[in-house]
């Protein structure tokens, strides 16, 4: 198992990449989250279920990467004045927010550990949920908000599957994750189209 400093480093990397850029680099952060989740759930789930969940996570990452790549192409062609002011501030603002969420998560995790859960799971859950919720509020694009929502969902899943690792719950939560990815893709595409219309 990971020690607390190692876990903090992995969590900081996973959410920091997402905060730095809600596009292709952010997808890498999401991939790290999926791998960390698989690692933490390894003792609880049967191998086939675990591998199926990991495969689903990888597929989701791939789908989101394609969407992020097409978003990036349009973003490059947009005049700078039409970009949201928060986006123009750069990833530094997002990084500071994630650092804040991380400090708060560390504080809450020591003061109020989740009952009946391992300490690593508690810390991961608090960190991912808090970072995800904070990033949702500062992200301007649908894709960024969606990636932040997936981060929060990952945090919830890590904790909840420790509480109930039944096949039905694993299946329904995996379906929820895949569905959320599809929603993000469809809505990002919708936003992209309306941006193109605005640009004429």
């Amino acid at each position, binding site marked *: 198992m990971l020690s607390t400093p190692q876990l903090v480093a992995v969590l900081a990397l996973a959410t920091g990449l997402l905060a730095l850029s809600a596009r292709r680099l952010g997808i890498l952060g999401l991939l790290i989250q999926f791998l960390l989740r698989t690692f933490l759930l390894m003792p609880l789930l049967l191998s086939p279920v675990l591998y199926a969940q990991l495969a689903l996570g990888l597929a989701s990452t791939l789908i989101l990467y394609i969407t992020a790549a097409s978003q990036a192409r349009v973003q490059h062609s947009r005049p700078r004045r039409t970009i949201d002011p928060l986006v123009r501030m750069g990833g530094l603002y997002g990084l500071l927010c994630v650092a804040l969420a991380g400090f708060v998560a560390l504080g809450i995790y020591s003061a109020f550990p989740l009952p009946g859960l391992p300490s690593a799971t508690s810390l991961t859950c608090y960190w991912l949920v808090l970072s995800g919720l904070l990033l949702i509020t500062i992200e301007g694009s*649908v894709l960024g908000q*969606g990636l932040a929502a997936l981060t929060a*969902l990952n945090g919830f899943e890590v904790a909840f599957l420790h509480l109930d690792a039944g096949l*039905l*719950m694993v299946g329904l939560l995996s379906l929820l994750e895949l569905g959320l990815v599809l*929603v993000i893709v469809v*809505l*990002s595409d*919708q936003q992209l189209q309306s941006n193109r219309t605005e640009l004429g």
Partner: protein
Amino acid sequence: MLTTLLVLPFAAALATWPVRRVRQIAAPLAALTYVLIAALAPFAARQEPIALLGRSLAMAPDNAIYASTLAIALALLMAGGGFVQESGLVWPSSLATFGLLLAAMCSSSAQLAGAFLSLAVLGIAFCLVAPDTAQLAMRTVIVLLCGTLLLLLAGWAFEASRLEDALTMPSLGRPATLFGLAVLLGVFPFGLWALPLGRVERPTAAFLAVCGIGLIASLRLPELGSVAGTELLAASVRWSGIATLFYGAIGALLSKRMSEAVSYAAAADLGVAVLALGSGAPTGGSLAARHLAYRAVACAVLWVAARVLGRCFGSDDVRSLGGAFRRAPLTFLAIMLAALSLAGLPPTAGFGSRTVILSMVHTKPSWAIGWALGAIGPAWALMRLVIASWGPTPPPGSRREPTWLAVLLLLHSLGLLVIGLVPNLGAWLYGLFAG
């Protein structure tokens, strides 16, 4: 029969997918499926539970009536969607979403219901797809997912408190129940997500999110009350109900557009249902659910009517509807009846249930002024539309209402009137169908 009921919406969603762009086929197909579901639901209530990987699904008799009511309202929305140009995704998405809502309604535990409701939220996002609604859809999905996942957690805490360590569970279950239900029901201030939905041109998505999820979440309150702590829950629910009632009533008074006024009026009516949930009376839960079912039908009529006015007169703004009654008399008649029910005025269905609920809430007589404001605000907001439409000349460039849709709207509104006059009609019909 229960299996058929649960599978039917998904099968119909698959059937409508290839024809989703052909509105003339997809809309009637989806509407007929909802009518079939409404007819099948009472029969499903008599069936044995279905086992699903260690859990069970069963339709309670009371819930069957609510399922039928929601299905009838959705049939109207589908029929109306053919005229008001919903997106092509709305037919299969709404059917799949309703299938998930039915599964949540039939779930034996709040935990399973929370999981099904989470999936239903994603379906609502597909129903919301339209130009310039991407941000709104994403925000709605995120807020509603927070609520459904909290409900999932609360359901787990409820089950765990009965099986395992009862002392540690409230620390998770109590906040999860309180915040989850507050978000899903849409009580003030957690229900601010609901108001913009009514304004966009996607009445089906607004209906599923505001009326469908709220009704099903309310059915879980009696079960989760023990996790949240009965006294704390009753107090918070009662005060948030009062705040929602006043907020909705004042917001409706200030609205100029019909769709906006309906959103606020629906919020005010929700406040009354929440008062029933917080009354602590044994019948509070069922009264609230019945009131929410009547509210769902009224909202469906008014949202479709708002879209009809928008299409026929260019806008549903009160200032642009002078003389519109001449072009859309049946639609305005339907609006009048549905508005009376949503505002809780006689002799409609909403009046009957609202009167019983307010008589259950033990407050000082001076509160009667507040209750009156809760009815007058929405009533005036919607009635002034009807009054504004009585002008001598119709708006220039306007077109006549589609007669078939106006008749459907009027039939639904008359249903609310008949239930108001004969309150036990629903139970009698259910008994007749279910034997």
